[in-house]
């Protein structure tokens, strides 16, 4: 637990110190901090695997009153994931200062990291609300770094995110009114399928779906994510939307009674399929590169929603591993994709997808990054996306009557292949390449490539990964 607390307090303290002291080379300090936090998170993962799930009572209060932190293999893995992605984005941002918007990026990204780690660790509904608010306040401030044109999307993002939080808080109040406790593990034993519980779960789900931009509540995401500075877009798409999904999973798979989960799971899975199709369609038609990548986030979150829905609908534990693998693989692939997209649009001097014509001539590494990350989104082997899709399809193929879901996954795959190939085909069209307006920076392109290479090799380390995910929560 101590390693986990270190991994939590490092980014928080670093963020506050960076605000107060304003040192000259913030990027270097942030890289140093995220490496240390990553090592601490790895230690926490090892501890959680050896000793099993651990609970910490903050302040030493006893159970009904205590606010508890939980360290399970899953939370430790998510901490490693958060610190790792923060490190990868920080490496790129330190190399290309234009990607951050302003120097204020550094303390804010540290606070975002800290808020997210606190979210993974919390085992208390109200504490989760506070971390959720911290997360979205940091995220909104980061979006606003892009300057005047991003203020309106940032404001809309803030308003919808607050509406989502207050819906969630209403649900928390109803839970407390009905059961008198907020700790999720205590609630899990008490929860019954009555009217108040249903209403509370409905309010919480709608609020969390709004915050995670799950279909049909995703409309705020493309303007906010595409309007933000490149490094911020990468952090938002890869990390921030995953926080509410984690809480949604926690609420439904731990607290909600199974008979309610069975009904709601069907709706979640249906919304997931629709997200795959409508997000993919919008990505296919998006005129701008970053908007395309942002819509692909909407589509890819559909897989997570589908996995969550089928997990609840059939109580199928294999879906749990599929859900978290989707989250990890999507995070890595999306970081790479946004960084490559930012690099491409900066060097080519335009945001249009059409301008990518022949980009593989001048910026081969960035284009290859986009293609490799896209391969994981489509689910080509041996990427992480392939592994996740394999895990999800296995239970579907075992019972032939589940073919509509498998067909939905197939449609989603075709959609993602279509929008990835739309970009890649343009990039490798060598007839009349669009000349770069500034000199490309090969180092930055390789730094953007790094997460894509990681996600490509994810299937090669699938054995320990599945072992860690096998020890999920329960």
């Amino acid at each position, binding site marked *: 637990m101590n390693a986990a607390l270190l991994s939590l307090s490092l980014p928080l303290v670093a963020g506050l110190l960076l605000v107060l002291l304003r040192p000259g080379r913030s990027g270097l300090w942030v890289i140093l901090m995220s490496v240390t936090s990553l090592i601490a998170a790895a230690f926490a993962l090892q501890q959680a695997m050896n000793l099993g799930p651990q609970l910490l009572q903050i302040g030493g209060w006893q159970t009904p009153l205590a606010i508890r932190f939980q360290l399970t293999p899953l939370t430790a893995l998510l901490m490693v994931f958060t610190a790792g992605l923060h490190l990868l984005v920080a490496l790129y941002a330190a190399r290309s200062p234009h990607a951050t918007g302003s120097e204020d990026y550094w303390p804010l990204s540290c606070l975002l990291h800290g808020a997210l780690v606190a979210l993974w660790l919390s085992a208390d509904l109200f504490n989760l609300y*506070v971390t959720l608010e911290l997360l979205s306040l940091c995220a909104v401030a980061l979006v606003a770094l892009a300057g005047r044109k991003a203020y309106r999307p940032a*404001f809309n993002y*803030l*308003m919808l995110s*607050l*509406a989502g939080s207050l819906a969630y808080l209403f649900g928390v109040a109803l839970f407390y009114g009905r059961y008198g406790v907020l700790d999720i593990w205590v609630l899990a034993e008490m929860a019954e399928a009555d009217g108040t519980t249903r209403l509370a779960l409905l309010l919480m789900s709608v609020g969390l779906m709004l915050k995670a931009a799950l279909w049909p509540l995703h409309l705020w995401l493309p303007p906010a994510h595409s309007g933000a500075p490149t490094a911020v877009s990468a952090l938002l798409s890869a990390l921030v939307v995953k926080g509410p999904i984690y809480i949604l999973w926690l609420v439904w798979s731990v607290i909600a009674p199974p008979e309610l989960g069975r009904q709601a799971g069907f709706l979640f899975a249906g919304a997931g399929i629709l997200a795959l199709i409508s997000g993919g369609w919008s990505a296919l038609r998006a005129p701008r590169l970053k908007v395309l990548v942002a819509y692909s986030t909407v589509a890819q979150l559909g897989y997570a929603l589908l996995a969550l829905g089928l997990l609840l609908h059939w109580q199928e534990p294999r879906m749990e591993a599929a859900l978290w693998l989707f989250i990890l693989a999507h995070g890595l692939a999306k970081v790479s994709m946004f960084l490559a997209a930012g690099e491409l649009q900066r060097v080519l001097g335009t945001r249009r997808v059409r301008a990518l014509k022949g980009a593989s001539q001048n910026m081969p590494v960035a284009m290859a990054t986009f293609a490799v990350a896209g391969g994981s989104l489509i689910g080509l082997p041996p990427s992480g996306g392939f592994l996740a899709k394999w895990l999800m399809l296995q239970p579907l193929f075992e019972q032939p009557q589940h073919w509509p879901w498998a067909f939905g996954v197939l449609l989603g795959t075709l959609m993602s292949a279509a929008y990835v190939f739309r970009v890649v085909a343009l990039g490798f069209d060598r007839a009349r390449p669009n000349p770069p307006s500034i000199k490309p920076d090969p180092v930055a392109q390789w730094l953007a490539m790094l997460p894509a290479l990681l996600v490509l090799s994810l299937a090669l380390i699938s054995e320990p990964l599945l072992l860690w995910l096998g020890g999920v929560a329960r």
Partner: protein
Amino acid sequence: MSSSLFWMIIGAALWLLGLHGLLTLRQALRRIIAFNLMGSGVFLVMIALASRSQPSDPLLVALVVTGLVVAVSATALALRLAGVAQGGRKHAHPEEPRQ
């Protein structure tokens, strides 16, 4: 009807009213007020829940205080953002570096 149920219904009504405003209104300031109305609705429900027992439940009161702090900071950020977004439209700042 007990008084705590009465206040809970008022709170839920305020929450719905705020949600409606947040989704339908266009001006930034009105939307900020609408979100605060939603917050007040939830806090009213929590206080009504707390007052069901004698003496009133201290945990819920503590949660409301924490919630108020969060709401105030979110409102501050929203006001600042709305302010710069408005100011940017009325008179552009040429000195601001363009991205």
